[in-house]
């Protein structure tokens, strides 16, 4: 993780002080500097998943003369942000308010609502008659299927049958017309998604929090998650550079995968890593990141670990940032 330091913020230097004149000074957030880190993930459907829009069909998008399944960021971000809150609550360093309902009352400090989760995933709060907005340090991209939609979506046909197993409704003396189809993404479907920062805004503890949240979430299903998790996450790698690169768009990554087997996780990971590595100053392969993730989860499960100390040390610094900035 040390190699990533040039592209991350420093937890000790979230704010700086500048003089107004020789007596007075003011505190402001540290000036942004060049740096971008991208965490590239493959989301694998391990049980039927539904990513629906307004219609019964799965949300899709036209790209490269074909249709691909498209999951908008919230489908994953929501779950992972929620997991992040739970992690903070478990360690007693934040997560005092429920997700998506941040309200501050007069006299409260912004840090009563905002915590490390806010810094990583973004949030906003109503405060008196103001709105306090916080930009997410990490942007979630669309998740895009590696195979065209017709190869990874199937449908089932349902009817609302009567108790006797037929469609005959004894009360109205006619057959039920309550018939419908449900579209779902087939198990084995792979989707690529990129989580990226722009500028040195994410401190190292924030990156750890992100990896932990991603590693411990893993399920989303809309209607279908009754059998347990239905999304497994594979890490392609972590990529850093001074500038964000065009290849970190999932649409560009898909272009690079054209003509290859889109159902083999290992092959897809290797090819994506090859594409991403060529464009970045720093590339860390997925296995290494996954090992960090496993270490972080183990450390989280053990009380009094070094990770817990780091969270506890970071808490007042993050609180200080929000309190100083919004007042």
């Amino acid at each position, binding site marked *: 993780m040390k190699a990533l330091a040039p592209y991350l*913020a420093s937890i000790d230097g*979230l*704010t700086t002080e500048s003089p107004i004149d020789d007596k007075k000074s003011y505190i*402001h*957030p*540290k*000036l*942004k*500097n*060049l*740096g971008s880190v991208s965490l590239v993930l493959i989301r694998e459907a391990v049980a039927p998943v539904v990513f629906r*829009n*307004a219609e019964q069909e799965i*949300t899709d*998008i*036209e*790209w490269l003369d074909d249709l691909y399944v498209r999951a*908008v*960021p*919230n489908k994953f971000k*929501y779950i992972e942000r*929620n997991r992040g809150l739970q992690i903070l609550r478990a360690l007693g360093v934040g997560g005092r308010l*429920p*997700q*998506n*309902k941040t309200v501050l009352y007069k006299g409260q400090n912004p840090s009563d609502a905002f915590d490390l989760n806010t*810094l990583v995933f*973004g949030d906003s709060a109503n405060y008196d008659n103001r709105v*306090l*907005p*916080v*930009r*997410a*340090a990490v*942007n*979630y*991209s*669309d998740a895009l299927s590696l195979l065209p939609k017709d190869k990874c979506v199937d449908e089932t046909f349902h009817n609302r049958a009567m108790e006797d197993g037929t469609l005959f409704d004894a009360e109205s003396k006619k057959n039920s017309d309550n018939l419908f189809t449900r579209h779902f993404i087939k198990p084995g479907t792979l989707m690529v998604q990129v989580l990226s920062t*722009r*500028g*040195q*805004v994410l401190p190292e503890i924030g990156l750890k929090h992100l990896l932990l949240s991603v590693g411990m979430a893993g399920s989303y299903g809309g209607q279908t998650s009754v059998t347990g998790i239905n999304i497994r996450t594979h890490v392609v790698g972590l990529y850093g550079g001074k*500038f*964000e*690169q*065009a290849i*970190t*768009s*999932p*649409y*560009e990554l898909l272009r690079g995968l054209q003509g290859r087997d889109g159902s083999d996780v290992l092959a897809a990971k290797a090819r994506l890593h090859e594409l991403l590595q060529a464009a970045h100053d720093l590339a860390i392969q997925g296995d290494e990141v996954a090992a960090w993730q496993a270490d972080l989860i183990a450390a989280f499960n053990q009380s009094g670990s070094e990770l817990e100390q780091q969270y506890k040390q970071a808490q007042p610094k993050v609180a200080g*940032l*929000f309190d100083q*900035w*919004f007042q």
Partner: protein
Amino acid sequence: MKAIITGIQAETLTPFAYHSLMVQGGTATLPELVSDHALMFGLAATLGMMRSSVCLPKKDYRRDLDAMPWRASVLTTDHPRLLSPVVRRLNLTEEAGYKRRIQDVVKKGNLKDFFTTQEVPPGVIFTGALFGFDPFAYSGQDELVIRIGLHRNGMLRLRPVKVEQVRLNAATAALFGRELSVERYLLYGLQLTQRMPAKDALHEVQQWN
């Protein structure tokens, strides 16, 4: 401001949306342009010239644009496209309920739980110009990626090209006390002038100080 004109070709790498136009049940994006503000602020962020904080400062475009070493034209395209609406959900009720007062407002439809946005698809190409600064020479990159749109989720790839004619934004000119004739009024903050040669545009924006 230096007399440098950098023609810009911008290609959308991911979909992006703005709450530009009211449509039934939600908003649609203006598909034929990327505003000059989006370009200037996006570029400042990409080149590391923004505040480091994830918290936003008080809104003041005049102050922010004044501090930038460049001015920009609006980026326009001849082939505007929009994706079909995507349903978004404002799930404020997920982990906790609303207060009664808010619930009543939601039920009356002022604060919708579900609304739609319409995005510009990937692969659309816009052109325009940047004045006073060549970001490609400055950064030593042959292409730059900037972020625009809601939640800065839209990626835009910038490349240098030769550009003859551009449109300026009269609303930005007005911030600097310059009055330009408007050919198309789109939004309060987006008022397009007629097409003009890039040299004339440069002459105009040099007075935006």
